[in-house]
């Protein structure tokens, strides 16, 4: 994981923001470069995500609009009204299956420092529609960059005072200090994503080990935090039965299944244009070279593999968790 940021682009509009000053001071060796709008640096045509991933820069910007958005259909864990928000674009980790590499042309990290505007918009959404879920970690990992962003540090006290606003932090990180240093918040779910060790070793660069993440999830659970488990994406390997079987054993040896908030499963799926871009970036990656099926503009595993894998994992998880905990099964479309 590259946390040694050597270039920081600062939008003129946030140059005097106190959060900008604090973050810039964390990187005394970085070149600090002023820019008009972050789009002048980020996601321009003719940039290469993979080359930029070698040494991503940080861009500090202001998010003007579209701060709180409705989730796509099928995204949620049982709530009726679901929204997502992205205080950051891109991720310090480098998972080969990640949709970000297909969505963005640039691997630079964009951090929107106007957190207070996000919070105002969440308040406005609550006032308009009532009790809702707010998912973070959609275009980034919620906690991986916490020592720099202090995102959770800022958002958790806000949610603590608004019991009708449910927050999901989704992460593959072990950055839990923002959580362990405060009392658990009943309307916050810390959702950890896992793939089996073998997949982790092959496809999740920079991501902390499965064992460390399980330890952190279990520790937070003991401290009273609501924990979610996300097996998303499920990835098909020749030994998927053994791999996933072992993963579930590992997880439930530490995490108490009776105290779990939720589990969700998701199959590997990318919009065709994202898949194409990811394949061009990593043509040597077997994940993109193997058998695929295309349906409604999405690329996924062949339907039979997907179904076998999904059914196997659902059945295995049924050994530990009841169907109420199994809030969401984003089952593959039957075809």
């Amino acid at each position, binding site marked *: 994981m590259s946390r040694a940021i050597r*270039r920081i682009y600062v939008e003129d509009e946030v140059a005097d923001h106190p959060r900008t000053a604090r973050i810039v001071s964390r990187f005394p060796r970085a070149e600090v*470069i002023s820019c008009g709008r972050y789009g002048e640096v980020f996601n321009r045509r003719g940039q290469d995500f993979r080359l930029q991933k070698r*040494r991503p820069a940080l861009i500090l910007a202001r998010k003007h609009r579209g701060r709180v958005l409705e989730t796509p259909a099928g995204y949620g864990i049982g709530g009726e009204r679901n929204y997502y928000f992205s205080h950051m674009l891109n991720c310090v980790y480098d998972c080969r299956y990640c949709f970000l590499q297909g969505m963005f042309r640039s691997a630079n990290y964009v951090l929107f420092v106007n957190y207070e505007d996000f919070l105002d918009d969440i308040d406005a959404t609550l006032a308009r529609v009532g009790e809702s879920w707010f998912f973070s970690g959609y275009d980034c990992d919620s906690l991986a960059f916490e020592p720099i962003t202090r995102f959770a540090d800022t958002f958790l006290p806000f949610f603590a005072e608004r019991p009708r606003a449910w927050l999901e932090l989704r992460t593959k990180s072990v950055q839990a200090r923002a959580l362990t240093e405060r009392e658990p918040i009943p309307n916050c779910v810390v959702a950890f994503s896992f793939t089996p060790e073998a997949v982790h070793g092959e496809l999740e660069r920079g991501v902390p080990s499965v064992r460390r993440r399980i330890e952190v999830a279990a520790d937070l659970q003991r401290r009273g935090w609501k924990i979610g488990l996300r097996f998303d994406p499920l990835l098909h390997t020749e030994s998927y039965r053994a791999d996933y079987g072992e993963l579930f054993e590992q997880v439930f040896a530490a995490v108490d299944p009776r105290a779990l908030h939720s589990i969700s499963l998701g199959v590997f799926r990318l919009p065709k244009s994202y898949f194409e871009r990811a394949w061009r970036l990593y043509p040597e990656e077997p994940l*993109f*070279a*193997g058998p695929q099926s295309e349906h409604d503009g999405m690329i996924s595993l062949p339907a039979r593999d997907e179904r076998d894998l999904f059914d196997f994992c659902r059945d295995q998880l049924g050994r530990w968790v009841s169907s109420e905990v199994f809030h969401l099964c984003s089952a593959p479309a039957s075809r």
Partner: protein
Amino acid sequence: MTRIVCALPAEARPIVAHLGLEPAGPRLYRGDGVELIVSGVGPARARAAVERAAPAEGREPRAWINVGIAGHRDAEIGSPRLAYKIVDAASGRAWYPPATFAPPCPGAEVRTVLDVERAFAGDELFEMEAAGFYPAALRCASAELVQVLKIVSDGRVERAERLSAAGVSELIEGNLPVLEALRRELDALAAELAARTAVPDGFDDFLKCWHFTVTQSRQLERLLRRLATLGRPAGPRGFDGAKSAAAVLAGLRGRI
């Protein structure tokens, strides 16, 4: 392959000598993996030089470097700077060359002006080509491969008028190691891009045996690359009975 664009013959001379480049046309030099173009002064000439060279771009990714002198109010004469921001003073447009490698020298904002700068109000470098060179080169290469390297030649004390051609060459010569380090980094990036887009083994052999349309040849290339990734490289031998390119493609798909 790297393409270097300099405005002045005096800037080009030490590079030509150091890399052992040979004349290859008017204001054009060529050597092992390098081409150098002398564009003339000003952004319009720099842009035109890139555009003239661009049609010769093949499939192979290339790095582009604009090397030249620049003024700064008080930076040490002879010190190198890699542009992290380029501003066209005339239009206000800005570009931000990404650095996906450890830069061989400090960075700077580079401001492209039409006349020799005398005021040096800010902390920027002032020069006359980058804003013409950069957007034109971006049309030929991924942004990571396009860089601007400037050597401080004048400022408030050392006035530009006093610079001789020999003095300019000396400044560039003193920074050849920086240029070399930059070239190595960019060559490595270009090689990575080239590896991704290389024609897969067997591709030409298939084209010799069957007639593929443009679309079919793209499909062929893609299938061969996927099969190679899966450790199942394919050649025309296994398709002896195939009557058409479509049949070959169907056979290759079946192997995935």
